[in-house]
């Protein structure tokens, strides 16, 4: 086991093309041991390809990878035991029940039934032990795939969109599980399209687009660096739009007869004090910038192929 703070993953200038598609275009990342690391990016940004190069499944056209201190493409059994991988689309044996599935994966690591049955319970599927995998719901199958990635207690876990297709309850539920994995000292690398998820779980995130890493920092730092104004929303009829624009610190004000008035400001406390004096606080909502704003500002609003 590596000590916290050591480098768990280091990639330098990774490149990978499929024909004329450049999937990964010079990615350099560093993930420290014990870190919860998120990779964000629009569809086709190169997240999965990057992960699979790091895992040793795909050979890059250029660049180097260091995974827990070694190169990943030797299929070194000792290294394989230290990492756990969940693919974006679950990969299961045909026509096995949830329990059999997990036991088979345990067997691939030389483990008996004990760990398999423990993990089945830990992801909340002991009630579905005898259900065939193909009859599980999308969220249950996702949890089973995660359990299969963890059954051998790896110290470094790769999860490719683990919460895709989950309902809000199941997603929060899974967050707790992922947090507990990280609390146990495991390094977690996760890709996701949910910004709230990355903001809530990740110590650090990299935002990718077109095969490149655009930024790589703590979510809070990214939001702060965005330096976006705070948006204040007032109930209809509280303050006149002309008066609002005249308030000190207000940058813009826009009125909508149905939903009310929206102000932007970089000095929210001063503006809120004035609004309190005008008795306009009832129904008021304040929304600061978040990771989604950072994401959209960096990657734009265009659809991706």
């Amino acid at each position, binding site marked *: 086991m590596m000590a916290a703070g050591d480098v768990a993953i280091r990639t330098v200038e990774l490149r990978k093309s499929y024909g004329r598609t450049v999937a990964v275009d010079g990615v350099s990342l560093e993930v420290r041991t014990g870190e919860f690391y998120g990779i964000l990016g629009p569809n086709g940004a190169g997240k999965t390809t990057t992960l699979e190069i790091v895992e040793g499944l795909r050979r890059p056209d250029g660049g180097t990878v260091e995974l827990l201190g070694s190169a990943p493409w030797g299929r070194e*059994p000792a290294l394989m035991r230290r990492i756990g991988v969940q693919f974006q689309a679950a*990969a299961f044996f*045909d*026509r096995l029940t949830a329990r059999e599935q997990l*036991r088979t994966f345990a067997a*691939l*690591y030389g483990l*008996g039934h004990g760990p398999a049955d423990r993990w089945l319970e830990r992801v909340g599927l002991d009630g579905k032990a005898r259900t*065939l995998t193909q009859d599980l719901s999308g969220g249950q199958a996702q949890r089973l795939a995660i359990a299969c990635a963890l059954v051998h207690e790896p110290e470094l876990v790769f999860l490719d969109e683990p919460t895709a297709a989950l309902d809000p309850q199941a997603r929060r539920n899974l967050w707790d599980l992922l947090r507990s994995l990280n609390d146990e000292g495991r390094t977690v690398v996760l890709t996701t399209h949910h910004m709230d998820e990355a903001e809530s779980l990740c110590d650090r995130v990299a935002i990718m687009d077109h095969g490149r890493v655009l930024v790589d920092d703590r979510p809070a730092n990214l939001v702060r660096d965005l330096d976006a104004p705070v948006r204040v929303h007032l109930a209809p009829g509280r303050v006149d739009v002309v008066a609002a624009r005249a308030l000190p610190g207000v940058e813009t004000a826009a009125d909508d007869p149905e939903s009310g008035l929206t102000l932007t400001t970089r000095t929210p406390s001063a503006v809120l004090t004035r609004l309190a004096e005008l008795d306009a606080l009832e129904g008021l909502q304040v929304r600061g910038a978040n990771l989604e704003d950072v994401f959209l500002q960096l990657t734009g609003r265009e659809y991706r192929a």
Partner: protein
Amino acid sequence: MSTWGSSFRGVGVALVKGFWRDRSAVFFSVVFPLMFLVLFGTLFDSTTSSRMTLLQVGDVAVLDDLDEGARGAFEQSFNVTREDDRAAALDEVREGDADVAVEMDGSTMVAHYTETDQVRAAMVQGTLSAFVNSANLAATGEPPRFSFRAESVEDDSLEVIQYFTPGLLGWAVAMSAAIGAAATLQGWRQTRLLHRIQLAPAPASAVVSARVVVTVLTALVQLTIFLAVAMLGFGLRLEGSWYLAVPLLVAGTLSFMAIGLLAGAVSKTAEGAVNTANFVVLPMAFLSGSFFVLDGAPQWLQTVSWVMPLRHLNEGMLDVLARRGQGLTAMLPQAGYVLGFGAVVGALAVVLFRRANG
């Protein structure tokens, strides 16, 4: 437990369960070929009576004067009924209800038969004239100078079932081994289970061995069921070195798995792989004499047929199951060809698969 042993067992158990729960796989590898065995067995059942019905009109001296032993021999070939109404007897023959009607015309025995079934007509003529000849001979009081006895070169116990059980079994094993290998390779590639297994410390040899052993066990189960049904239902007899069928079948299974791997390697989907495997196995079965003997086929077809591993497997199985006295020396060259064919095709499959999957 070692990782090798545990992976081998784990994957093996998973494959057995996956196979057993796949009703259509079980149907096509066991039930479907067995249906053919039962069908052929019933069609060619040699225990049904081949005795001919003979109507005797009036007194027929040749028959009435037969001594005890000759009468017994005669009744093995003919089922004799007395019908003294001549017209009625001829009508019965005409309508096919009886094979022949005999009457005496002076010292000549006249047999009335129909030409509709020429084989039977010939048998009636031949057998009756033989009896008349021997009756003539007996009337002279001299002992016969020459006698005749017919013996089949195989064994008089040999029946048709001995011939088509090996062929149908070869087809059944070829089908399930090739399709199983093709479906596993492409299925696992498509769902990326192959990649997922690569990321575990399980040795590749353990996973491959599990697949091979499960397929071989399946073939042995097919062998057992086939032999049991053929023996209990249709009188198949296991004699001589029949047990050499087991190593032969194992060699065949490996070879057919290689064909399946090749089908998997050149296909893009699991369904495509299964269809390709089927596309190869069915014509191969016809060309290898699994369904009918190829003795009458043109020379070029015979040549093509001897390229097929199934042809060699079928011949080897016939040698040890049907042609008594044939043993190891008959079986080894066939098994050798089958294994060599498998090795070449398997190596080709590995090369093509590696190329297609980076």
